[in-house]
């Protein structure tokens, strides 16, 4: 299972992308448990805020776009974990 986090926007307008293949991680089961908790029915509620980051998150073939103000709970946990894993693969 591939998880992709694409962060765009911010005052710099720089797009960053972090990709993780769950099967290659040290503890795949904990990743699967986290993925099962994701609230996919979340909708982009707030009007886009000036210079706020926008996250596009893909898990296998499902995608969701959320402004950083709504990046809470399991979505926030997932994004932080993907970033950590993608930036420091030796630790997993």
């Amino acid at each position, binding site marked *: 299972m591939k998880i992709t986090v694409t962060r765009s926007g*911010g*005052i710099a307008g720089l797009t960053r992308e972090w990709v993780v293949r769950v099967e290659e991680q040290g503890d795949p089961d904990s990743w699967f448990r986290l993925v099962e908790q994701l609230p996919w029915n979340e909708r982009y509620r707030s009007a*886009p805020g000036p210079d706020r980051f*926008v996250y596009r998150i893909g898990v296998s073939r499902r995608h969701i776009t959320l402004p950083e103000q709504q990046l809470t709970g399991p979505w926030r946990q997932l994004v932080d974990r993907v970033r950590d894993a993608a930036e420091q693969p030796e630790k997993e």
Partner: protein
Amino acid sequence: MDESIRRHRTVAGEHGAQRGAHRLEPPARSIFDAGRTETLPGALVRSEGDEPSPDIAVNEAFDGFGHTHALFREVYDRASIDDDNLPLLGTVHFGRDYDNAFWDGERMVFGDGDGMVFGRFTASLSVIAHELAHGVTQYTANLVYRGQSGALNESISDVFGALVEQRVLGHTPQDASWIIGAGLFTDQVEGLGLRSMKAPGTAYDDDVLGKDPQPASMEDYIDTVLDNGGVHLNSGIPNRAFYLAATAIGGEAWSSAGQVWYDTISGGTIPASCDFVGFARATASKAADRFGADSIEHRAVAEAWATVGVGM
């Protein structure tokens, strides 16, 4: 309610009889420290009349708000963000390694950067002014932050960000760098800043960040779902139009092209969904109103938009 707002309201109340009269008060600034959390507003650390803080980020935000407030007050006769002497609220040290600054509808918020690509976001006056200008846009044209109207919203923040810096430095359009966010990158990044209004697409070219993706004219307009429809990308097009107009007119950009742009956003004639063509027409119209039809300002504005491929 924090003390600065309370004080402001008391003062406003004492002059209640003048309600409706246009009073241009000095800035009412309050800077808060989020202590590397994402909780706003954080702890109040500096208000009007306080001694400078030992924390450089606090003082940069405080002074930057002062310079920006001064441009709007002294040049455009505008009383703060809302033209009604709104207190200026800022929060520094937001989040951990947070590579960003933003306007949240009520306050300006600044991260410290990750130390690898970015240092602290208060290090650039144009960035501080950019965020305050988002507040001014919210209270004037209120351009929808998506697609072309979003790119205009972004560009307006870059325009006033650059103008605050130019006015403080006493730069003509020829002297000015036209770089937004100079000094934000660490030494490890190959780049001048976040964006170049003079030459969009040339601000940085780095192994890690890649090349500045901004288009400089309509033929390179970027269609994307990212960044609310590329608001920080396509802003390069109206940014360059402003640069071209200001340079063709010469003198102080803030009182020529800057005045035209300010008249455009505050004039009540453009819709929140305004696109590039609508904005271009409105700036030409405001240039004619302010400086005369066929004045050098009017012609420079029209020509600038034609050069970047925005036809009227």
